[in-house]
């Protein structure tokens, strides 16, 4: 719209300037005719070789001659014609009129130099430019204001969606807006959130039921074994078998507990109320594992820059995360190997933590599957149940921590990228 206006404007201004000039010429013609009626033609008449009557500034002239009717029956004509002025041909806009005075035909020409027409044109043009710029600016500001106002419900919806933390946000009151589309959008989003919430709720219920239905019979068996072992004079063979059964049961319990833990993390059943000092947490984890380190003669060194922290966080889960990583670093290390924990703040505010062990390399094709549940290495060197790293992954995801494994001849490194604490 503004474009069309911009393109059409010079043409319109030119036309307007020309029309304006012509109107003035006609007006002057009218005045000259009136004066001729009053005082006669004498003072206006130009003889054949006389030069034209110019006004003082020489951009207008009047030329009245006897006879010479170019257009016998014709009306007045207006045209752009060259005229001699001070020995030069200059373009004039000329109004030519014929009339009869006291029985004599006359021809009257009134001219206005095109230069002066151009002047008017220029003036109009610059005025139009200013006006246009002003109009565009005002419109823009107005539109911005109006659009902002109109789109406020949209901003509100986005704002609400961004505030959603976790899969079960509290229900929101319906958006107050008169615009049907926004209400429709808001309702759809609320319905979607409700659906997600109910799915999570169902899963939560399912996990609780599984938990109860499976752990109760395991409990019965475990307690029964314990009672049986209490008995006096139990044959040695039966005793051994009972202990073996207990061990199998313990393995089942451990696997089930870990699976339930992963499900609960993924079901967002844990809160994140803590601010965790990573250095302090690592100290506790290492203390918990010191017997294993000593047993395998493994040296653990820590080089942490600054005071890395995680917030909001769940301390118990983070403990499990670091426990599993360091425990793995011990388990898969050579005896008398080393574990190095290095940490440095990154320019973007995150903190990078690298946990390196000097164990045998993990084949490259197995790295992408490292965090999958029940994934064991083909060479069977793992005595675990393949869930430790699955727990690690779910805890890192829960806290928005990035984790990247890398392995070569020098050993295996897990690189953790901790988000800046909030």
């Amino acid at each position, binding site marked *: 719209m503004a474009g069309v206006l911009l393109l059409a404007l010079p043409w319109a201004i030119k036309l307007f300037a020309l029309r304006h000039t012509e109107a003035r010429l006609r007006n002057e013609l009218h005045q000259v005719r009136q004066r001729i009626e009053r005082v006669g033609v004498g003072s206006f008449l130009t003889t054949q070789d006389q030069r034209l009557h110019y006004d003082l500034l020489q951009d207008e002239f009047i030329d009245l001659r006897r006879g010479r009717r170019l257009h016998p029956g014709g009306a007045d004509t207006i045209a752009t014609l060259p005229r001699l002025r001070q020995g030069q041909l200059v373009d004039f806009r000329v109004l030519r009129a014929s009339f009869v005075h006291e029985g004599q035909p006359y021809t009257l020409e009134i001219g206005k130099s095109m230069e002066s027409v151009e002047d008017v044109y220029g003036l109009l043009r610059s005025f139009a430019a200013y006006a246009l710029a002003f109009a565009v600016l005002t419109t823009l500001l107005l539109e911005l204001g109006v659009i902002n106002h109109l789109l406020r419900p949209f901003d509100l919806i986005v704002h609400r969606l961004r505030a959603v933390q976790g899969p079960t946000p509290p229900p929101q009151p319906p958006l107050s807006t008169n615009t049907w589309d926004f209400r429709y959008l808001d309702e759809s989003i609320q319905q979607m959130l409700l659906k997600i919430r109910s799915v999570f709720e169902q899963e939560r219920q399912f996990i609780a039921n599984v938990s109860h239905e499976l752990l109760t019979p395991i409990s019965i068996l475990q307690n029964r074994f314990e009672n049986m072992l209490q008995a006096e004079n139990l044959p040695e063979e039966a005793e051994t078998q009972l202990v073996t059964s207990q061990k199998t049961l313990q393995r089942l319990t451990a696997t089930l*507990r870990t699976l339930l833990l992963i499900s609960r993390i993924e079901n967002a059943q844990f809160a994140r109320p803590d601010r965790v000092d990573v250095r302090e947490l690592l100290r506790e984890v290492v203390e918990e594992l010191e017997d294993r380190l000593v047993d395998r003669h493994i040296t653990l060194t820590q080089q942490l820059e600054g005071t890395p922290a995680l917030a909001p966080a769940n301390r118990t889960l983070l403990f499990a995360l670091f426990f599993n990583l360091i425990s793995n670093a011990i388990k898969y290390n050579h005896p008398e190997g080393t574990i190095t924990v290095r940490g440095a703040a990154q320019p973007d505010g995150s903190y990078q933590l690298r946990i390196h062990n000097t164990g045998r390399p993990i084949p490259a094709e197995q790295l992408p599957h490292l965090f999958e549940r029940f994934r064991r290495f083909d060479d069977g060197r793992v005595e675990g149940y393949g869930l430790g790293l699955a727990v690690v992954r779910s805890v890192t995801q829960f806290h928005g921590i990035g984790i990247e494994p890398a392995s070569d001849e020098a050993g295996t490194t897990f690189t953790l990228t901790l988000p800046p604490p909030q």
Partner: protein
Amino acid sequence: MNVLIIEDDKALARELGLYLHNERFHCDFARTGREASEKLFVNEYDFVLLDLGLPDQDGLQLLAEARKERNQQASIIILSARGTVDDRIKGLDLGADDYLAKPYSLLELVSRMQAIVRRKHGVTQDTLGFGPFVLNVSDRTLRYHGEQEVTLTKKEFDLLHYLLLHRHKVLTRLQLSEHIWGSMISDSDDRDSNFIDVHVKNIRKKLAPYDSGDWIETVRGVGYRIKTAQEA
């Protein structure tokens, strides 16, 4: 000591009752929330063992009720298979004295009950001795003839402490690992009871320079037991 076992699963209640009976507790049973409320109103108990998943009532609600009962001075231990994360926090907030997630070892339960009794009656024993060694629970040290300190790791100390608390019993590796690693969320295989052997081996190694007696007896196939002075 009178114990009320609130548990809807008959078999589980039976095993629990059997073990506690052997430990000289007198047990009473309730299978529903209503039954439990009645018994809590009429009788006085020293302990209430509460399962949270009752058929007619939420266990936590029952806990809150029991805590309001004026005559009821019982210590309450929650035994739950629900395992929802905030059950433990809510339970302790509502005034439970302890919380055990199913499955738990019966020995651990009894240990917790005994600890509560000791706490309540202010008879916490600071030191436990075996032969020339004395384990001090308050400053967590092990001393030889009351002087030289034997340095133990946290796990070694806890293990020795547990063995001494149940000094006449054979403790299985499972019971020991349950106690040492019990409440911890971690990788499944780190609860491996085999690691108990490593701990015991290390404790023995640490005691050897001071005393030639084998104080921790290996009971073949089953577990370990602290020897009495006469045996060593």
